[in-house]
């Protein structure tokens, strides 16, 4: 079994008070937790990638815990989530896809019953590559006020044989959300969509 080797973590929190409109009573907060790990498959083709998904599960939990801690420690404040991966140049995009299950698992474990699919994105890139990680409501993907994204990246990662794995959470709608659509207080919560 290949082991998990983390070179570094980065956590960042954005606290948004206004976007040109009125300053609200509470800010919108968006946070990301990133881990830079060794890509055990870098440089050659491996047919069987699945065992590494199990290895990544504790990291999914670890990053989700870091996120909730960065947002103040209470999982109940989390309303939106997303995930992403940047694969260093000696890897392939399929290696980034290994993050889908463990990343989603880690967040769902801690958020308790989040129903919506976790939106995601991934790409290949060098150190300093930026990734726009999509965010949607944790219980109903169609909640329009919560369609958002957070740009993440680390100046010195991913190196060629590394993976940069990202989880992102937000605490509410866009700061001046006003383009209609399904609202959070209208969620039925049956299918993860509405």
């Amino acid at each position, binding site marked *: 079994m290949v082991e998990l*080797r*983390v*070179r*570094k*973590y*980065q*956590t*960042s*929190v*954005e*606290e*948004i*008070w*206004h*976007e040109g409109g009125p*300053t609200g009573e509470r*800010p919108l907060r968006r946070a990301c937790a990133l881990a830079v790990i060794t890509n055990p498959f870098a440089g050659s083709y491996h047919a069987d990638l699945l065992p590494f998904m199990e290895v990544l599960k504790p990291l999914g939990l670890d990053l989700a815990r870091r996120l909730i801690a*960065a947002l103040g420690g209470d999982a109940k404040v989390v309303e939106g989530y997303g995930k992403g991966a940047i694969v260093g140049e000696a890897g392939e995009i399929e290696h980034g896809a290994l993050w889908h299950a463990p990343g989603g698992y880690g967040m769902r474990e801690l958020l308790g019953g989040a129903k919506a699919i976790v939106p995601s994105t991934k790409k290949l890139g060098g150190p300093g590559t*930026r990734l726009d990680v999509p965010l949607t409501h944790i219980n109903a993907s169609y909640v329009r006020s919560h369609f958002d994204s957070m*740009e993440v*990246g*680390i*100046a010195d990662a991913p190196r060629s044989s590394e993976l940069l794995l990202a989880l992102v959470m937000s605490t509410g709608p866009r700061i001046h959300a006003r383009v209609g659509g399904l609202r959070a207080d209208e969620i039925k919560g049956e299918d993860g969509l509405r």
Partner: protein
Amino acid sequence: MKSRIRKIVTFLEETLSEQGQPVDPPARRAAAVAVIENPYAGVYQQDLSILVDIGEELGQLLAERAVAALGIAGQQVESYGKAAAVGEAGELEHAAAILHPKLGTPFRKVLGKGAALIPSSKKRGGLGVVLDIPLGHKDAAYVRSHFDGMEVRINDAPRAKEIMVALAVTSCGRPLPRVGGLTKDQIQGLDGLR
């Protein structure tokens, strides 16, 4: 508050290994960045005292945020730095007014001490501009292991009429320092230099 803050972003970096060598305890750096309105955007203003006061206010607020992100007591912080990026309708002197006259005193108060000059950098730039915050030991500027820098970037700042103000603090020097010079256990702590 004198500053009209649009957003505050905090960053925490934790490095666990470098070139395959473990970094134990992990090297931790944190930064807190405020995006504020520039009251003098687009005009030449001789008296910059409002910005000087904003610097004093942010010196405390951002120092508290950065130390909280680092998760240690202020007294345990080893190195520090500051930087600002002025949006295109401002001038470099606006960054200087925030950073230099009054920001240091409340920053040092949060850390309990800080005999050394706070290393700084400033620039003008557009959205997503990269700020490299220089870092130096807070009690003795010549401690070679603590000469470092931390990159911060916010994809949607600074707008033309905004200023980004950043403070950084660390729990240590570079991950695996080995280029000699003054070490932290040799600090005399009298003049802020050695």
